[in-house]
């Protein structure tokens, strides 16, 4: 489902001295089936922006269109939208509450009023997607490890069979292995299930590796959108947003100052590895 944002402004607690403009005239287009990463410094409005995508927040001004649903400042029932657009919050394991993992994953589909058979099917599918084991299902969510708990929470959202999946810092607080597993899962959902994935992240490395489109935010405004190549070519803008190039690119830049023939600015370790190996093969080890 395509998401179109038009001159979106969001103000928290308008009309009081606590009023704070979190988003200012944001325009954005997220194509159907894309993998988009939203990057920005803490407090740049990333989380506020994505909470509009499934109608949890309403614009103070402006409109959004998600698929065929319009979200305007006026009140309307957006529960149907929340099934289509799954939202995984930061530390989603904090939302687990049922006695068993299985019941918790089934919460969403049950709320949608789906028949038992469909609920069972969706739960099984979601469990398979996130790679939880059968024996996990009958345990209490609090008996799982951190990474497993996060996958259980993710399954709870996936069980609603969303077309769009929004994730706010999905790898925060996980160990390297947990990170890799979650990111590989997102990549698979995008590739195999054709889901539109929107990921809010601090990690430029993850953004460079997985995203097709990058959105750079600062102080509630969109500074830049484009493919990773386009965005990383504008280091000045990234610096202004308080962000840096991905680690491999920074490494190449440092290395280039000592090389006669500079290497191209590559964004992932794998691409850089291939480039260096190719060059060494051409010129021999010296």
């Amino acid at each position, binding site marked *: 489902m395509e998401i179109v944002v038009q001159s979106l402004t969001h103000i928290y*607690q308008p009309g009081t001295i606590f009023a704070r403009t979190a988003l200012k005239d944001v325009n954005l287009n997220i194509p159907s089936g894309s993998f988009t990463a939203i990057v920005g410094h803490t407090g740049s409005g990333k989380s506020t922006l994505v909470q509009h995508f499934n109608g949890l927040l309403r614009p103070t001004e402006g409109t959004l269109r998600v698929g065929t649903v319009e979200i305007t400042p006026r009140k309307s029932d957006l*529960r149907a939208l*929340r*099934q289509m657009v799954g939202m995984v*919050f930061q530390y989603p394991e*904090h*939302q687990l*509450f049922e006695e068993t993992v299985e019941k918790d994953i089934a919460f969403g589909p049950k*709320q949608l009023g789906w028949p038992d058979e469909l609920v069972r099917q969706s739960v099984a599918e979601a469990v398979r997607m996130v790679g939880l084991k059968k024996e996990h299902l009958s345990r209490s969510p609090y008996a799982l490890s951190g990474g497993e708990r996060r996958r259980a929470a993710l399954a709870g959202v996936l069980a609603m069979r969303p077309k769009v999946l929004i994730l706010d810092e999905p790898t925060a607080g996980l160990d390297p292995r947990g990170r890799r597993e979650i990111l590989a899962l997102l990549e698979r959902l995008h590739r195999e299930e054709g889901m539109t994935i929107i990921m809010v992240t601090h990690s430029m490395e993850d953004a460079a590796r997985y995203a097709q489109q990058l959105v750079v935010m600062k102080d509630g405004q969109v500074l830049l959108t484009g493919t990773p190549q386009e965005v990383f070519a504008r280091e000045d803008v990234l610096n202004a947003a308080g962000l840096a190039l991905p680690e491999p690119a920074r490494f190449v830049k440092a290395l280039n100052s000592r090389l006669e023939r500079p290497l191209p600015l590559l964004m992932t370790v794998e691409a850089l590895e291939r480039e260096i190996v190719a060059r060494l093969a051409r010129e021999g080890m010296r």
Partner: protein
Amino acid sequence: MNASQLSIGQYYPGRSWLHRLDPRSKLIFVFFYVVFIFFANNAASLCWMGAAAIGGLLASRIPVSIVYRGLKPIFWLLALLALMHIFLTQEGPVLLRWGWFTVYEEGVRQAVLVTFRLFFLILFSSLLTYTTRPMDLTFGLEKLFSPLKRFRVPVGELSLMMSIALRFIPTLLEETDKIKKAQMARGADFESRNLASRIRSLLPLLVPLFVSSFQRAEELAMAMEARGYRGEEGRTRYRRLSMGTADWLLLLGAIPFYAGLFLLRTW
């Protein structure tokens, strides 16, 4: 349960004369106000107390619209109370007879009196919390009650408990808001008109909230110990309170003010 909604008496930052007073002088003044408002028993004494409340409101420079919004839920209670007094008091000459309802003069008098007493009481005491940071308030209370330490009342511990409770109200509200949103994203319905389903929908909110609160309490206790907290015995303070000229003037002014009340009331 909406964190973005301002509630009655939530500290409203400012630099007015009322904001800068020592919490202790404010506490003492408000304490006597709360007690003595019930001695106001005619129009003159009620106006005398009301003038102080409205004067205080103006002096605090807090926008009236904010205070009005905070007081709104109270108006229903006041209206209910007034109606009960009108219909249940059976004294004095009859004013109105309608079906089996009879309204007596004393009932109307009581209704007006009680409503305005309560209204001024709530308004005035909310000014205290509007203009005083919660931490200053608990510290002021602790100082006022510190003589009780001699009788082994754990004043310091009690005030610490109060500070912690106050400190975590915004945190808990924020947490509630976050979990609520997460469950709404999973299809939970917190706005249902159906009471039963609304109560059921509280479970996904309360369970995670309880779990995180207990975790937070444990972490807080550990952090306090790590920073050397060993109970209130011998604890020193970074923040100090000082009574200025304005504070003494307020306390001195309280004597003629409340004397005026007793002159105006009918005996």
